[in-house]
């Protein structure tokens, strides 16, 4: 247990964070009326966001240990424990999840009119399982929460989704579950090999090359589907497009991050040999994702589809950073995970707001909104600029670090990824141009009134993060650095150093 720094706050902060939403969900059926349900859910998610604050303020940024840890036996006969903890890798993801959830509730305030109780219960159960996934330090606990999340997400798409909800929800469920089955096999294999499910204890152990390769591939399939990496991405556009706004936001902001989190938490530290052996292939897959996502986004007429495909490209950048396997790349990848959560979550909220008004997501129907919705298009502009990695915004920092990391590792790969950034600019600016200045097709624009205070408040915190991370990323990078250094040390991989590269170029 020397890798755990036990919780000394005096109260089990992580357990509270995980179970507070679930407890809130239990109360929901007892509440009268739909508005009280909305208010209650908002309060619970806000309370959770407040409870998560001490994580950031009391976190020791010089330590690579798992902090605020809790450890209790769960299924003793199988050596399964209830172990929670956060390190620099999971801390920001936990914070982002607690931040996003109240915004999802606010974003669904008017959007969801039928079966509000069930909807809010699904959101709260989602929050419990998502937070649990980022905190779990036991493989069985991790898997249980990882899978438990499928049920509310499935229902969110299947019940409150668009016209093709049935198809999209089943596709989402089957794809991710098929991946999870491999994850389960990998978990069982590791347990048989080491006799423990403890994630930190499994890191840095000696495994045979063949074993590493098999376990890595099993992990990889599960996480690559979740990310989703090209060519495992086909479930994503359907799920994103059909899901209700809150579902899309959760999918983009948190669920996709679980795949890349899995790479950082399992693939690199537990099976580093296999990961290093496959690095070139993984980097090229990432580049393929970046280019494919960008090109397909460019061809979309549906705003939600456009953002969904852009996610494939952005997540390609994240995996590129991870598989650059050096400090810059990893920092960039982790930061970009947060950035993508903030920016794409905000963009989905924006699309939802238009959809609420016009019941259409077609770019042509949303054309010329600048005249009617000035506040809205201001927000949209900033988030779009962030999405295309404009300097001064959060994604710029992330993408810069990723490309720098990739460049140190493999110049050709990095060069090939750069058109992805150009493509992002192309599809985002195309969208902005149409939405803000495009000629209106629709003669009746009376429904296109500007944002109300609730909507403005929903987007404001995300915008604040766009600039905070964009202008002063150090507080965020500071907390992740020791854990990422530790992770790099565990992989034992020495990427070509910057100095050597400079010498190479000079020659």
């Amino acid at each position, binding site marked *: 247990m020397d890798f755990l720094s036990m919780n000394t706050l005096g109260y089990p902060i992580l357990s509270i964070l995980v179970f507070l939403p679930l407890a809130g969900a239990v109360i929901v059926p007892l509440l009268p009326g739909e508005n009280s349900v909305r208010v209650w859910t908002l309060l619970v998610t806000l309370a959770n966001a407040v409870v998560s604050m001490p994580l950031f303020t009391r976190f020791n940024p010089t330590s690579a240990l798992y902090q605020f840890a809790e450890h209790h036996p769960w299924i003793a006969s199988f050596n399964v424990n209830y172990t929670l903890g956060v390190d620099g890798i999971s801390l920001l993801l936990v914070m982002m999840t607690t931040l996003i959830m109240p915004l999802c509730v606010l974003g669904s305030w008017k959007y969801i009119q039928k079966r509000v109780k069930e909807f809010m219960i699904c959101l709260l159960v989602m929050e419990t399982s998502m937070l649990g996934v980022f905190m779990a330090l036991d493989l069985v606990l991790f898997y249980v929460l990882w*899978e*438990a999340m499928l049920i509310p997400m499935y229902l969110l798409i299947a019940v409150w989704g668009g016209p093709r909800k049935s198809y999209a929800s089943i596709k989402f469920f089957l794809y991710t579950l098929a991946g999870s089955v491999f994850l389960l096999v990998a978990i*069982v294999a590791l347990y048989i090999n080491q006799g423990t499910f403890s994630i930190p204890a499994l890191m840095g152990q000696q495994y045979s090359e063949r074993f590493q390769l098999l376990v890595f591939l099993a992990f990889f399939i599960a996480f690559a589907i979740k990310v989703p990496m090209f060519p495992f991405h086909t479930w994503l556009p359907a799920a994103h497009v059909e899901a209700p706004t809150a579902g899309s936001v959760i999918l983009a902001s948190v669920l996709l991050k679980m795949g890349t989190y899995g790479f950082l938490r399992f693939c690199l530290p537990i099976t580093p040999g296999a990961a290093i052996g496959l690095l070139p292939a993984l980097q090229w897959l990432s580049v393929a994702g970046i280019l494919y996502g960008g090109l397909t986004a460019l061809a979309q007429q549906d705003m939600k589809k456009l953002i969904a495909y852009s996610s494939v490209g952005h997540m390609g950048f994240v995996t590129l950073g991870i598989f650059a396997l050096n400090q810059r790349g990893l920092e960039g990848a982790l930061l970009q995970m947060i950035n993508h959560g903030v920016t794409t979550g905000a963009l989905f909220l924006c699309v939802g707001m238009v959809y609420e008004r016009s019941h259409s997501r077609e770019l042509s129907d949303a054309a010329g909104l600048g005249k009617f919705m000035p506040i809205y298009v201001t927000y949209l502009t900033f988030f779009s600029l962030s999405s295309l990695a404009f300097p001064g915004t959060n994604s710029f920092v992330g993408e810069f670090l990723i490309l720098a990391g990739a460049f140190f590792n493999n110049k050709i790969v990095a060069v090939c990824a750069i058109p992805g950034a150009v493509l992002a600019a192309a599809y985002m600016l195309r969208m902005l141009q149409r939405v803000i200045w495009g000629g209106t097709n629709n003669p009746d624009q009376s429904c296109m009134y500007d944002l109300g205070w609730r909507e403005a408040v929903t987007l404001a915190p995300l915008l604040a993060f766009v600039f905070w991370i964009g202008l002063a990323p150090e507080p965020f990078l500071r907390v992740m650095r020791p854990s990422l250094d530790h992770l790099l040390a565990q992989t034992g991989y020495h990427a070509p150093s910057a100095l050597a590269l400079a010498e190479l170029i000079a020659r």
Partner: protein
Amino acid sequence: MNAHLFAPELVLLAGCLLAFCMTLTEARTQTLRLLVLCVGVAFAATSVLCLFAKGTLFYGAYRVDLFSQLVKCVMSIGFTLMLLFGADTKGISVRMRPEYYFFLLTSLLGLTLLSSSVELITLFIALELSSYSLYLLVPMRTPSDSMRAPMEAAIKYLLFGVTASGIMLFGMSWIFGIAGSTYLDQILPAMRTAGSHAAPLVGLLMLFCGMFFKLAVFPFHFWAPDVYQGASNDTTAFIASIPKIVAVAVLARFCAMAYPGEGHVALLLTGLSIASMCYGNLTALVQTDVKRMLGFSGIAHAGYILMGMATLQGWGIATALYYATGYLFMMLAAFLVLCVVSPDGRNLSIKDLNGLSRRSPMLAFVLGVSMFALAGIPPFVGFMGKFMLLTGAWRAGHTALVIIAAINTAIGIYYYLQVVRAVYTEAAQHDAEPIVPYVGARMAGICLVGLVLALGIAPESMLQLAKEAVQAAW
């Protein structure tokens, strides 16, 4: 004789007599139901009270230990919950109800005796008592044009059952020939000293057949889908759940004898496990009748259970027992919904469940939980059980089996999800009215969902109990 050792059986016996007397009276509906419910509750209560009873009866032919008592406990709780399903037994004509309950109770009595029998002839008689009662229950359904004739199902059930029993009896005679005794505790050392000759192995495999039939393991599964479809919903609920756990228990006792040619037995169990999983899951994919689908999925689940058996080790069998317990409750939860939703006791197709979440959120929830649990999604017992079975099988060296089982789990999701999809995303028919479940059904639903969830989240105590039970039996 210590009466307390035999208390649950005595209660059931009294219940059988009472039901028999009821066949002679005019009481047909509510009084009868209430009476049987009282028997069920009394049976459950005595089973729980006698959980830690220990001893032997009838010259050692009947052993009361934690193993048998645990099985009785699970069985009795399941049975009592099953009795709460509906305000009346829809598929059975009022005229036949006392007989229906009588045979239900005798079948249960047979199963109860089976779980404690440690002597081959007692075991055989108990098995036949339970089986013949079931053969009679199946054709009691009031026939209608839309369903496969119950009689056809009954005849299929009978023929397959009798054949399986015959093979089992043959195996018993073979084993008696080798060991010179019909008592399991005397057969055990004899089998061990018999070495890896073919004779004990053949005897043992034939002995297994009887239980494979009950569990509907491939290739003894042919009866299952037809009987599930042909029998009334309540009868199917019984056949699909309660005999299975007893079959697992008896199989567990037999596995203790598998020392001669251990490798061969393990290989056979592994092969049957793979065949059952693949066949059950693939055929379930194309079913439209929910009960028939559950029948095929039952074959697949028998395959999962055999994974634990194939380890031939104590804890592997304990996990199989744990899984069978979970399976019983998951199946009952699914059948609860079918029994309540079906308006006149007819079979439901998946389409009939369209929009159930609108008609009754509670029933939709219970069905959703049972389907996700059967599919092996956490945090329900179906996941924990499968996870432990996979771990056990891998630990025993059956890596290929684990991978095939994992792939099968993924296949299975599809058809379970079809049901959830119908319930939650499809629109109900225009004339579909809201369903308000009867209070007993609501209670049973809450209990079953609670059990499926609790066994999944906190499996430790049940697992420990199963472990100790298997130790007591071996």
